[in-house]
């Protein structure tokens, strides 16, 4: 009990670039885990991709001993694709720092995450960062935070994470405001798995928060949802590295390894208990991670298919949210239909396949899942538009919706409303969170979000809008199928669904976008787009008549060779169909409003 009273489990809720990583670095220094001069920029982001993109994808807890207190800082993923994991990470905490940049104010992601923290009844410690900057608006930020938290007034900790100002005061506030974990170390084991990863030597490592009981090497454990039982081979805590300990008990955050090979058997959010003396109930709130965005991946060369399968399997070892199943396209032959949490997740998977596994791929344009009820009463989940049943047999179609949160300077309200309504959005709520900034909430079809919504939003608000969303369920949809024919043959991998009211416009845009992205070929390329059962758009790409370097003398040899090399490299990332080379950009372009 005395031990537990000195533990504080907390997260940091912050928008990108509001200083979360810098603040975490200050905590690491204070605990003596790293010296400031040894600090790698943003210590906690371990993947190269994370550092490059300046985002956190995986949750990384770290145990900080400061004075005679133990602080478990549970870092949360910083992107909406991983919001389920955010919610599970928050469930592992008693409190959260709500960190807002005094020069930027409250953003959409801050709002979404703060709501989640409140749903979990976390003690929230408001912190205003970057108070040392000349453009800091501490008073305005404070008012916006109070409004967000539904309070008349708050007492924020004022810090500059970069300069180390206010950090000690913040530590005191964490001790004061965040309750110590409750729980009974003698009760049956009840631990929340809020993350897991694959380690070559240890197998699947579960990252856990122990709510009741304890766990040590040799214990037999059971996972509630998957039913998997196994024997614990190692337990420990996260200092910067994994440090084995004798045991973990109620209140602790740490890891458990139990010789498990398949990460899908340890789903994030599941409850770990004892196989011998099981808890009476799981920790509430578990749901299995569901892919929301679907796309097909084909190797540019058919012989790479097996290598693609192996690479996807390897990625899945560490990424339980990635799902894939083999499929065969009439046009491209064997490939995989993959499911992702969102666009960023999809992008990361593609980039890792290309970088870490050196694969040359074609990724089709992403789509959402549709629920279809046929006239014969059959219910189908359609994840690939080309497999959409004949419309004459369709009774009802449903598509997924999200509740989108947008925070934007008030001068852009008009453009944002126009954009959202153009995307079939319905306004749910609008509120001024400060004199200049507005919070908008919209009910939006998810299909509209996964095209270029975010790009458009950034563009109509000059980059000032922030955006977050949460999935709300399925609603009736009125869609039509758009199919593409290249020189008379259907390219099934380019099939899309669009709202019936928009289908003509979209079909014409698809034809134009393809015309602009398919390079000239040896033959004329005729692009036809079919919607509502007939061809509604037609474009042609004139044939290439010559491809020749006219001048090549002594002075040009190396320059001209480089040109040829570049030209040859450009042929990669293209896939042949019906004697036409289709580049990756063609697939990415189809759903764009305009490629010009």
């Amino acid at each position: 009990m005395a031990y537990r009273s000195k533990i504080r489990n907390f997260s940091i809720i912050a928008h990108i670039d509001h200083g979360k990583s810098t603040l975490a670095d200050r905590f690491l220094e204070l605990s003596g885990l790293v010296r400031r001069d040894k600090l790698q920029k943003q210590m906690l982001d371990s993947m190269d991709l994370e550092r490059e993109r300046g985002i956190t994808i995986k949750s990384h807890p770290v145990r900080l001993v400061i004075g005679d207190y133990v602080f478990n800082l549970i870092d949360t993923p910083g992107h909406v694709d991983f919001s389920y994991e955010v919610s599970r990470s928050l469930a592992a905490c008693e409190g959260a720092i709500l960190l807002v940049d005094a020069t930027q104010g409250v953003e959409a992601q801050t709002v979404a995450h703060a709501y989640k923290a409140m749903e979990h009844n976390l003690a929230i410690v408001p912190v205003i960062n970057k108070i040392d900057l000349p453009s800091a608006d501490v008073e305005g930020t404070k008012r916006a935070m109070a409004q967000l938290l539904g309070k008349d007034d708050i007492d924020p900790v004022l810090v500059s994470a970069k300069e180390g100002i206010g950090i000690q005061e913040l530590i005191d506030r964490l001790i004061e405001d965040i309750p110590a974990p409750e729980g009974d170390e003698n009760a049956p084991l009840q631990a929340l798995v809020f993350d897991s990863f694959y380690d070559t030597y240890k197998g699947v490592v579960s990252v856990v928060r122990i709510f009741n009981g304890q766990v040590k090497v040799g214990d037999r454990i059971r996972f509630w949802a998957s039913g998997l039982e196994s024997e614990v081979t190692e337990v420990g805590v996260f200092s910067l590295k994994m440090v084995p300990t004798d045991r973990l008990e109620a209140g602790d955050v740490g890891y458990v390894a139990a010789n498990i090979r398949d990460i899908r058997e340890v789903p994030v959010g599941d409850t770990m208990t004892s196989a011998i003396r099981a808890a009476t109930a799981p920790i509430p709130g578990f749901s299995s991670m569901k892919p929301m965005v679907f796309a097909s991946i084909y190797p540019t060369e058919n012989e790479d298919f097996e290598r693609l399968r192996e690479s996807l399997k390897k990625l899945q070892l560490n990424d339980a949210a990635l799902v894939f199943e083999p499929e065969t396209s009439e046009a491209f032959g064997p490939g995989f239909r993959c499911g992702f949490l969102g666009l960023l997740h999809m992008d990361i998977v593609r980039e890792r396949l290309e970088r870490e596994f050196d694969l040359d791929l074609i990724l089709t344009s992403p789509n959402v899942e549709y629920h279809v009820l046929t006239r014969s009463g059959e219910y189908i989940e359609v994840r690939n538009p080309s497999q959409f049943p004949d419309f004459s047999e369709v009774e009802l179609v449903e598509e997924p919706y999200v509740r989108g949160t947008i925070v934007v300077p008030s001068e852009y309200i008009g453009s944002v409303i126009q954009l959202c309504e153009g995307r079939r959005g319905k306004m749910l709520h609008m509120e001024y969170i400060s004199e200049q900034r507005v919070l908008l909430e919209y009910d939006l079809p998810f299909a509209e979000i996964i095209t270029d919504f975010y790009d458009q939003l950034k563009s109509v608000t000059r980059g000032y809008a922030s955006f977050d969303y949460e999935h709300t369920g399925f609603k009736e949809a009125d869609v039509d199928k758009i199919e593409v024919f290249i020189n008379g043959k259907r390219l099934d991998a380019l099939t899309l669904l669009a709202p019936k009211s928009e289908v003509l416009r979209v079909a014409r845009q698809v034809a134009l976008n393809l015309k602009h992205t398919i390079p000239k070929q040896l033959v004329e390329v005729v692009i036809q787009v079919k919607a509502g059962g007939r061809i509604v758009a037609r474009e042609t790409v004139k044939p290439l008549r010559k491809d020749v370097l006219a001048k090549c003398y002594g002075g040009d040899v190396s320059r001209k060779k480089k040109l040829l090399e570049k030209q040859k490299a450009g042929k990669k990332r293209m896939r042949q169909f019906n004697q036409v080379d289709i580049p990756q950009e063609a697939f990415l372009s189809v759903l764009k409003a305009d490629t010009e």
Partner: protein
Amino acid sequence: MNKGLYLHIPFCYQKCPFCDYYSISHAPEEWLDKFTAVIVSQLQEFPRELDTLYVGGGTPLALGKSRWEKILPDLPKARERTIELNPEDVKKENFPLLENFTRLSVGVQSFSESVLRTLQREKLDYGKLLDLLGKWDVNVDSMVGIPGQTREEVLRDLVSLVALGVPHISVYPLEVHQGTPFWSHYSEWEWDDADLLLMVEKFLTEHGYEHYEISNYARPGHQCLHNKIYWHDEEYYALGPSASGYVNGVRYKWVSNLKLYVEGAKLGEPNYEEYMVLSWEEQLSEYAIMNLRLLNEGIRRTEVEKRFSESAWNLLLKQAEGNDFLNIELDKITVKNWLFFNRAAEAFV
């Protein structure tokens, strides 16, 4: 193997709006003198006799007669000595100077006045061209695909050249390079000059010219020896800013900057923009690409085996396999359709 020298004179009377070569118009006299002195001193280091000499530019005669008289005595002897001329250089008073050369390459481009207006170039009279034809081996550069140029104008140019008996004709489609005045006018232009190029080929080959390289046509016995050194990937020295040489497996390019060139040469520290020692594979690759430009000769097995090795020929055969743009025969590899030379050459990149 033949050996040549390319001398680049980086001066011109007036920069043409499509030109992306290194040349300076209206350079101060002082710089012309410095350049001349440096070239004269550099020529002292050269072999006294080579197979070919080619003086290009810029416009070589923009250097001025008196400066040329300083350079001429030190130029190496050669079987073929070519100098490039602009239409305005073709006049009797220049003949004594030109007599030091065996071959003249004249930048005629077109005889059509409206085309020349677009190109901002002067017209060469037929009579003046005739004066040259009696005394020298002559090449005429001509251009097709110029905005506003008609098919008839191209044909008329060709008829004139053939009728005058010009023994060597180079035909280039207009290329619009970034950084030239043409770029801002014509970069969006949709070029479709393939038909023109095919018409040119048909006309000239029907009139006794061999289409021996992608852009070059010659009557028997009039192919350019110097340029064939490039296409045979043989050795050549280079002098002058931005000029490139290839000697002993090293490809080098002088700095494209007159001041740096002159200063470097004076200090005995030559300024190169590029200096690459080519590996065996790189040499073979460049050899293949360059020889492929010779439409009938192509990449010849006996030459590859003599210069590289037997396995080199086999390697090239393997690289050529499956490339639909190549003709693979027992003893040579040639390009099937020269309009798609790049696709063919990709096999050896």
